[in-house]
């Protein structure tokens, strides 16, 4: 993966830059020794490591604004970082960029039950939001598996989902407002405690923008009342095709479960070894369906789902009879990543989405790719919304295996797009999928996205080298060819 050439001039000015930053934030908030910076040299995509120019940990929004303003004036790049759990390298440092960590923004500012929201600083962890309100029966719905560690600012930047987003949506559907700081050092408020405004939905655009448009300095999140009951079914199938059909049948019957997850044989056995969750070891596919709501409703729908699963050819069905049993059903799924980590020295976690009906085709494709690359793949899916998480097993100590695994992953993502899907469902493009963007988008699609970037950050100083395979200068992107019929007009630069 090639990152843009670092600016040697900036690197040469490192001491002066650190000294200047120490005047903007308390000196202790600038980390510039090689040793201490090592803790920040990668995010969750740990195959890629890079020491930043310096790490800055501001304590107030005014400090963020001042850092941004100074960096803009000095032409210094900035990479925002939350908890560093991104799986796509979005928070990967650059040698010539300041890494702006939001770790000190760790306070919940307000719990507002009257308006059913929580106002929090961006460095608060996802799970801490739920912890703050669960005593009163509320929770924050998006629940990425990394929720004990990842930050809500990072969730906004990645538009993170979780196993319950089939029914409750991704971050973007649960976000009411943000405060953000632009590369110019302006502090803007988008949205608030109200629902819709009538201006451009810039909050919607900020969500999932992977730290390229601005730094999120505060979030207002919608909280929901916890459902009265949650019950789950654990369903085994002898072939993945029938399992895929069953998932579609549930939706077609008008049922939107709180979660509908699927695992393949390799994942089932790895998870069972790890968690002893009572998974059917012989099954080719396992579906976990969770229903939530009032008890009467859940009981009725469990019955309907059971019938659907039986007619789709389920080989085994268990229905949770207690909270303990429901948690056990999930224990295997939730430990799928570490479980796979035990059967292989390393793994790559992919994240494409396909139309659900293509699942059987995808399984066939993956099996043949697995043969081609000589690497095993374990599959966990957010089956309800067609989001795949193939885990490609490899050993980084074997020369060439990482590259082979990456090529395998790229082929899977290519197949996703070919089947009518997309490159990433929830982990983001980052550096990992950057060079595949041309598969899904035309050059014109990407240029239009970058024009939007120019409206926020005209000098490409914020998190450059991520998401877009080619960086075009804003002046070039803004150029217009105006012509009508045969009458050519001169090019008009617009930016």
């Amino acid at each position: 993966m090639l990152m843009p050439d670092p600016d040697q001039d900036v690197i040469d000015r490192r001491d002066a830059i650190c000294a200047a930053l120490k005047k903007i934030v308390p000196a202790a908030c600038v980390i510039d020794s090689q040793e201490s910076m090592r803790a920040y040299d990668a995010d969750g995509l740990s195959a890629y490591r890079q020491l930043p120019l310096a790490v800055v940990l501001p304590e107030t929004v005014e400090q963020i604004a001042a850092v941004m303003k100074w960096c803009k004036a000095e032409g210094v790049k900035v990479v925002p970082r939350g908890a560093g759990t991104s799986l796509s390298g979005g928070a990967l440092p650059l040698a010539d960029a300041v890494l702006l960590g939001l770790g000190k923004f760790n306070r919940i500012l307000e719990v507002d039950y009257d308006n059913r929201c929580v106002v929090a600083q961006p460095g608060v962890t996802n799970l801490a939001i739920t912890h703050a309100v669960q005593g009163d029966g509320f929770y924050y719905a998006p629940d990425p598996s990394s929720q004990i560690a990842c930050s809500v600012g990072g969730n906004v930047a990645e538009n993170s989902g979780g196993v319950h987003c089939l029914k409750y949506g991704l971050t973007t559907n649960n976000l009411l407002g943000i405060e953000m700081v632009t590369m110019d050092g302006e502090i803007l408020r988008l949205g608030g405690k109200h629902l819709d405004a009538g201006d451009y939905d810039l909050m919607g655009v900020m969500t999932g923008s992977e730290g390229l448009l601005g730094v999120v300095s505060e979030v207002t999140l919608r909280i929901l009342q916890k459902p009265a009951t949650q019950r789950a079914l654990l369903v085994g199938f002898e072939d993945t095709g029938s399992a895929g059909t069953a998932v579609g049948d549930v939706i077609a019957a008008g049922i939107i479960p709180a979660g509908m997850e699927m695992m393949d044989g390799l994942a089932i056995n790895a998870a069972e070894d790890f968690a002893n969750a009572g998974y059917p070891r012989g099954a080719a596919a396992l579906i976990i369906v969770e229903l939530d709501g009032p008890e009467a409703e859940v009981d009725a729908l469990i019955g309907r789902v059971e019938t659907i699963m039986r007619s789709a050819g389920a080989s085994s069905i268990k229905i949770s009879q207690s909270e303990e049993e429901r948690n056990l059903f999930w224990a295997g799924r939730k430990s799928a990543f570490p479980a796979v980590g035990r059967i292989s020295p390393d793994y790559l976690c992919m994240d494409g989405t396909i139309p659900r009906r293509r699942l059987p085709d995808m399984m066939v494709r993956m099996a043949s790719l697995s043969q081609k690359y000589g690497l095993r793949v374990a599959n966990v899916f957010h089956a309800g919304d067609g989001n795949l998480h193939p885990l490609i097993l490899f050993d980084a100590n074997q020369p060439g295996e990482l590259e082979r695994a990456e090529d395998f992953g790229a082929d899977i993502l290519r197949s996703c797009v070919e089947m009518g899907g997309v490159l990433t469902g929830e982990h983001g493009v980052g550096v990992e999928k950057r060079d595949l963007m041309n598969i899904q988008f035309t050059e014109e699609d990407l240029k239009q996205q970058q024009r939007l970037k120019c409206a926020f950050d005209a000098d490409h100083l914020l998190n450059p080298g991520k998401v877009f395979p080619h960086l075009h200068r804003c002046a070039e992107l803004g150029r217009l060819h105006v012509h009508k019929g045969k009458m050519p007009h001169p090019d008009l630069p617009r930016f």
Partner: protein
Amino acid sequence: MTLSTPIISVSSLDEVKSAVTDAMADKSRLEIIASGSKRALGRKCAYDVTLDLSAMTGIIDYQPEELVLTVRAGTPIAEVQTALAEARQMLAFEVPDYSHLLDTANAGTIGGVVATNLSGPRRLTAGAARDYLLGFEAISGRGEAFKSGGKVMKNVTGYDLSKLMTGSFGTLAVMDEITLKTLPRPETSCSLIVQVDDFAAATNKIASLFATPHEPGSAAILPAELARQAGLPLNKDTDKDTDKDTDKDTGKDKKSCVIVVRLEGIDISIADRLANLQRLTGGDRLEATASEALWAKIRDVRLFTAPVRDVWKISCPPAAAASVIDTIKASHDISYFADWAGGLVWMTGGTDTLGTDLRQALAGFGGGFAMLIRDSGTTRQVIPPFQPLPGPMLALHKRVKAAFDPLAVLNAGRMHDGI
């Protein structure tokens, strides 16, 4: 638009593209319309050419079990809804029909709904139009074709331009194919009707219902007078004063407001939830047919008595609605009701300064947004129909507009001066 404005009717993206490039070369301004049902929304501007998209119709792909619908932007909303109903599905954000307010013949097209981000009562719990647009194909104001998003439910590849396009009132790009997430229709529904002292008591009560696991789906607040006119059977201790509930001092022990809470789902669930909520609030059950009819009136803003004057749509923190209304009532003779648990207030009446006073009140009570929806005279010439943006936000909006439509050929000035 004047009658003499030439109309170009287009039926393909290529034709849109040539119309836009021609406009760029001619430095002419295009008004983008399909059915024209929402033409009265926004600023009144002069355009050189009307670009008519009403021929860009048809459902391209609909896979109910995928919950995905791809449709051309000019397709009438009624046609979309018929197709969805056949598969027992819906657009969960509940498309409102403002034809009654805007004096138009129909509810318009799906493209118009997306471009204006209009959502109905279920918006409170199910999200807005912006939450359901998965992707689109369009021609930008640069005359270039581009797409964003996709045709699957979960996608974070690249910037989420679907959000930007929703509610941009055609000022950034002309959409053709749009892909929406659909959801199964609830099997049935009913409402709980509860009478309370006043508006503040209503928002409090609703907040307490949302602090239970009984899943209220939508929640409206109607002054007793409007509720009675809408045909709701009210108890005798209700405010008998037909001069609205302007009298705050004597209103103490009168029930001047009615809460309507809608429950949707399967029969057994609704019965259970209703019983639980009734235990907390008392109140009466409104059966499916009557409930649906009432919610259609709330959704389409058909509760005010004719002749309707200017109508304002106010989005505010639900708990702030009572204060905003009280402030306005002190100096304006208004009629109003609320949806979204208080977070959406519809207001009519008042004097010329209503809009300005509303915006000032909102700023004082936690922020929000007031938009002029129906202009019965010339209000939008004197008060911006869209709430003015603070300086840095306006500047950013202008840069975003320029990124898509640098020569301002698309619906120029529709939202703000220059946007």
